[in-house]
């Protein structure tokens, strides 16, 4: 019985952590690798720089 709230708390913390990583872009490269064709993907650095160029090419922040 005492383990249940802890498990719920751990699950919630894990979900929050996953959200934070995805929201910040921290997990973006892993997600990209999971979809990329074997042997034909960008390096982590190239992927990061490419993502920045794409994001700031259009209106990305508002008033």
């Amino acid at each position: 019985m005492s383990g249940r709230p802890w498990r719920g708390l751990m699950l919630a913390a894990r979900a929050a952590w996953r959200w934070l990583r995805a929201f910040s872009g921290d997990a973006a490269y892993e997600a990209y690798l999971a979809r990329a064709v074997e042997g034909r993907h960008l390096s982590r650095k190239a992927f990061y720089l490419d993502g920045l160029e794409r994001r700031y090419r259009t209106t990305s922040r508002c008033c």
Partner: protein
Amino acid sequence: MQRLLTLVLWAAVALAGAGALAAIALSRGEPVNGVFFVVAAAGTYLVAYRFYSAFVAARVLALDPGRATPAERLDDGRDYVPTNRWIVLGHHFAAIAGPGPLVGPTLAAQFGYLPGTLWLIAGAVLGGCVQDLVVLAFSLRRDGQSLGEMARREVSRRGGMIAMASVLAIMVILLAAVALVVVNALKQSPWGAFTLGATIPAAMLMGLYLRFWRPGRVLEASLGGIVLVTLAVLGGQWVAHHPHWAPFFTFTGPALAVAVIVYGFAASALPVWLLLAPRDYLSAFIKVAVVLALAAGIVAVRPTIQMPALTRFVDGSGPVFAGTIFPFCFITIACGAVSGFHALIASGTTPRLLTRESDARLVGYGSMLMESFVGVMAMVAACALDPGVYFAVNAPAGVVGASGAAAATTISGWGFHLDPATMDALARSVGEQTLWNRTGGAPSLALGMAHIFSGSIGGERLLGIWYHFAIMFEALFILTVLDAGTRVGRFMIQEILGHAWSPLGRRGSWPATLLTSGLIVAAWGYFLWRGVLDPLGGINTLWPLFGIANQILASVALVVATTILMKMGRRRYLWVTLLPAAWLVAATLTASWQKTFDADPRLGFLAQARLLDERADSGALPSEKAAETRRIAFNNRLDAGVTLLFAALVVLLIAEAALEWYRILSGRKQSVVHEAPYVRSRWLEASP
């Protein structure tokens, strides 16, 4: 049974919201608690989201979770990526929430708390959220097309050009207005100037870390960045009390304006990874955290609202900006209720990330509700201040008087008793040299936030730290808007010039980058510079111009959306977009007319220009002063021209759209929507 429980629950939410709204609307003289604002807003938002957004999504837009989105059909792992809707909600909210919903309500508080609060809530649920949702949904069905592209394809070629021209013109005024807010917040403030200045090397350090040492490890870098900016806030206190460093970091308005202009140029021309991106990461984290902390702070502290429901300035004689409630309350609130700029975000990156069409409801409508809530909290923070203090901070010296004694007499004469010693003590308690005439909205908002935060943690002892933390928070994401906006403005100019001479359109070309960065910075820098020199504080001119521009862009978006709805055969639901569009067009055209032609020199640009010309020609002024007066008169005529340009753009687009509507309704033209072909979603097939 469950149905009955649901019914009871929603009835309770609706009653709580309506009761709180009634309490703040009907109170005259009795103290009102800030928590009522939170309950009124939250209750209305929940009901609006549950019922009205569901109606718009299902009946008006017929969003279909079984239809594959661009993210699914064109998934390339880079531009188009199916993403969890809660993550897209976070991204979209971080993108749309800028300084507007904080500054606009703070300035509009001069009318009292009631008009602004009602518009923040009603305008958002019936106008702003609807705009964001419909534009997102329509872009989603067009592979993430931009607003300009949708206007071109669905209204007319000319309509598309008008939309693009509106965006560039509006960008210039927006950047000038937000830059002026930063300058006014930091002038004569060594603590603030040091803190914000220190965020630049902090961001660059993060940029180097992310580029060379740990590419893409955003959380690690952001954590380091947050530690550095916190140290910068604390270090600012030491600087402000240091006999040598305090004068070194004390800047006048013009000096800060030059610094911001140089910064804008550098941020636009430098590689995006070095300054713009890391600052954006920092800004996004701090923004979300502070918004949550402010909501918690209001509930914990339960501040009493000190501003009356309506002030004497509803007649248009306000010291913060001139003009009556209609249209200027709506123009000033702008982004907190309806923001045309959101249409650019909703037709930019966001539609390329949604996994299901039906997610547009949460992301489009839901994000705007959150932004409106930020606006309501800003209103609470501003109105929790003593009204005398609020006007002393926000009214320019040209209106209330240059000395503290004169200003206190003027403000007390308005019925808001103010002792000059109160202002001096307040300035000391937050570590500032002065708080008189700190126009722009940011300092008074920071004061309100500092009172709420210090009421929860640290008490009066930490008031200065909280004040400068709030200033850093506001300035940080204003600079993010400035960085990103200048860069996009540069690309727009490059695109236009590239048609005339193709080398100017090349993205990687250094001469083209430097030239176009210089052009966009010169455009907004000009308006910033004259705003800084304006004896009335500048914000009284620039913010209404920004508001008009922003609401005109919203009108453009809603007119384009109405055209698409008409083409989709949803004629019985046209009112959903047509009514907010009609309201915005009425407000913006009235404001444009009054700002240009009103006979009151405080309101009308041309009347002000004539008055200044008369003064310059009277011979009573020394020659140098007369020349400066003529320059200000010229600036007023330029403002009149810009205002009329904005009005002309929206009138032209409405004429283009009305012609298209007439052709469709009269059967002269077949109504064809240019949507991407229907493809069934594999997610739906995968689900049981």
